[in-house]
């Protein structure tokens, strides 16, 4: 048994799963569902009150406490009756929740883990594309309702365009932002244009036609790890959780023979 294997989250998962199974098998339900006695001790009641206090920041009044106790009794009665009727079996919601719990157990170690610098540096390098910021552009634009009007104005040194509530100058906006403001078509056109001193266009948008003077384009780049450490860590965590769930499932799955007719 190597040390590495014992550190393996999958092993933790399997042990956890086995313990859980044993636990469920052993205690099953906290009370025999056939029992018709519901007892709420003083400490049970204190804990109900404590739960309320945690949520509301103050202890419950007597009336609130008896309401909470009544609700607990009601839940317990219905819960036991549901178990007596076997409502927990073949219930897709129950099955799903238990399956989700298993996934959560598999993921939990990755949720808590703090990856070291080396791990993040490697992740940052290996998934550079994920962290690349899209390019940004700076330009001036003037608007025309018709293509003909835009063409007619193109020869002018400083065309004035027609009034519309769009920014006349745009600084350091990404293509996604341009899409939100001017529409997708315009953003795609701008993405393909080069910086030039002249007015370009007319470029169509959702609003009409634009003459554009593209003054600056900054290509996308991957920021250094120090600048985006939390993003890299979040991405590492998301991917690691997914991978561990898959690994844990596959390990369990291997023990099954599945027959699909």
């Amino acid at each position, binding site marked *: 048994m190597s040390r590495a294997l014992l550190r393996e989250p999958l092993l933790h998962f399997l042990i956890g799963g086995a*313990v859980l199974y044993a636990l469920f098998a052993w*205690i099953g339900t906290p009370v025999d569902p056939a029992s018709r006695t519901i007892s709420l001790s003083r400490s049970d009641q204190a804990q109900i009150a404590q739960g309320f206090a945690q*949520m509301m920041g103050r202890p419950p009044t007597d009336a609130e406490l008896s309401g909470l106790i009544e609700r607990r009794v009601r839940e317990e009665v219905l*819960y036991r009756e549901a178990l007596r009727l076997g409502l927990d079996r073949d219930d897709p919601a129950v099955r799903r929740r238990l399956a989700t719990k298993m996934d959560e157990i598999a993921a939990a170690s990755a949720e808590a883990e703090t990856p070291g610098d080396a791990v993040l540096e490697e992740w940052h390098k290996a998934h550079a594309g994920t962290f690349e910021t899209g390019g940004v552009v700076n330009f001036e634009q003037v608007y025309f309702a018709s293509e003909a009007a835009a063409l007619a104005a193109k020869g002018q040194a400083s065309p004035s365009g027609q009034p519309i*509530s769009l920014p006349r100058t745009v600084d350091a906006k990404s293509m996604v932002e341009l899409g939100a*403001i001017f*529409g997708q078509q315009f953003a795609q056109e701008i993405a393909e244009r080069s910086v030039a001193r002249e007015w370009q266009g007319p470029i169509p948008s959702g609003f009409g036609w634009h003459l554009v003077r593209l003054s600056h384009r900054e290509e996308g780049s991957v920021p250094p790890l120090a600048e985006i450490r*939390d993003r890299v860590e979040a991405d590492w965590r998301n991917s690691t959780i997914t991978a561990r769930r898959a690994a844990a499932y596959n390990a369990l799955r291997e023990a099954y023979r599945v027959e699909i007719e």
Partner: protein
Amino acid sequence: MRKLVMAAWTTTAALTLVGCDMVASDPDAAAQSGDQAQTAELPEFPDRPYWGDTHLHTDVSVDAFGFGVRLGPEDALKFARGEQVTATTGMPAQLDRPLDFLVIADHSDAMGATRRLFDAPRMLVRDPVLRRWYDLMHEGPEGSQRAIAELITAAANDEIPEALRDPERQAGATRALWDNHLALLERYNQPGTFTAFAGFEWTAMPDGNNLHRVVMFRDNDDRTEQVVPFPGIDTEAEQLWDYMEAYERATGGKVLAIPHNSNLSNGQMFELTGPDGGPMTAAYARRRAAREPVVEATQIKGDSETHPFLSPNDELAGFGIAGWELGNLPLTHTTTPDMLPGSYVRSALKRGLTLEQQTGANPYAFGLIGATDSHTALATGDEDNFFGKHTGNEPKATRAMRPQNLGTRVGRFGWNYLAGGYAAAWARGNTRTEIFDAFMRREVYATTGPRMTVRLFAGFDFAEQDWEGDWVRAGYTRGVPMGGQLTDSGKAPSFLISALKDPDGANLDRVQVVKGWVGADGVAQEQVYDVVWSDMAKRQRNGGKVPAVGDTVDRANASYTNTIGAAELRAAWTDPDYRAGQNAFYYVRVLEIPTPRWVLFDAKRFGLEIPEDVIEQGVAQERAYSSPVWLRPAARPGDAPAIMEGA
């Protein structure tokens, strides 16, 4: 045996389920996930609306799950930020344009009701002994063995830490779900790009009358993990507000509630009386306005702006009411006309003015947003990309004409569902604090799905020439934006109103101002003004009415053209019917030209034959509703303080 199992149980818990506490207790992590990085770059004034859905259900909601959804919060976040996911029914699903923010609002009861049954051991590792064990286990096999030995000893000596004994915590499946959920949100929340809010739905429904609220938190998980979602069953709105106040007191955070589907409340959402049926008190009114600054005016289960019965002179009233107007949510009680004023937001805004005159405080001084209330984990608002109210009506041939499940299977059909709306927030940046604060000051608006840009400023000296300069600056410095309030100056209020079409959508038909006020006789009134519309030279008023914009919709092909309507409509408008001392509100309604609804897209896609009347209902003028601006009489000495300073 019992002791052994106890020890093993503890081991599992400590081994596997420590996530959230570790993350949240790390101050660096909290700082990184906060908004600090963004504050330096914020513009002086909001320069664009941020788009989001504040009301989305995933498989954590028991009803959504029952309808079949198998996508969870993580899929919902990926989808909202623009990634492609596979819908439960197997189709690829993606938004044409990403959303800027999302509130996953799963039912709190769904989380709570299942807790015993689904309880797996889980707890936060706050206890120092547990922490030591956790650390030992992570040291390696020797440490792990030592930890287990210590655990067994502790169990034998009856020294198990208190945290492991507390059944309230042990049974906390809600706690577990919530903590996992908050950790997930922190991983997807990316200030400046995509904002993931913590929230839940409080689902109180006395007698089937919908009083639901979405609860939305401003804060990171260092605060939100200190509570769990508040149950809706057997609780009342005032208790929800208690919960919210306790949260703010305990954590220094902020939280708001958003009522929705007032259209299905049978008049109970916006009552004239207090909750006990007696007269409403100023204290209640003030509290409600402070807790619920924004209301959902439109969503998949219908539109709640107004009803033709309430607004007989509003020829464009009645959007999105077919089917929904019949009764409460499960259709156990039908709706009668006397209930309508308490069910729609325009009449509620009027009631607010009346109540303010009576009590000194306005309980219904709220802004307006749209949302989806989708139960598919997919926040779809577009007509050509509608994934259904729930997984049972994800795209398929039968969904448009089938009676749908809410109610008696009589009177409501698939085609009654709207494709869902969105919220637009005038925030200075895409962060939790900026967007939440825009909600608090009601600088938000509703759309029925399209992303038109709507600006509204109110003051006393706005005029057409303001358009020539930096009118946004003028709006903010010489007036108030939507959601704000003016104090009567003895002069008619004037407004700068701009509506820019959705850059990837339909042209605009017209811009209207809806005014509500209390007349000298004490009766609340309303009036809809056409302010500016496309082709004004050709479409001259006829008998006081602006002629219809026309209709380019090709019903068979589910298409339209932008050959009618305008790209932008804007106007400086002054209230022509102002009377000094009037208590009034003004909001803007923007209408698109007619476009096909999802039903026509379905008919084309699946080759459906649908009845003529449904085809006609398959064309609509989608719209935006701004939050109102209020004009309040100058305070007289002795008046109660104004309630609307809020944010």
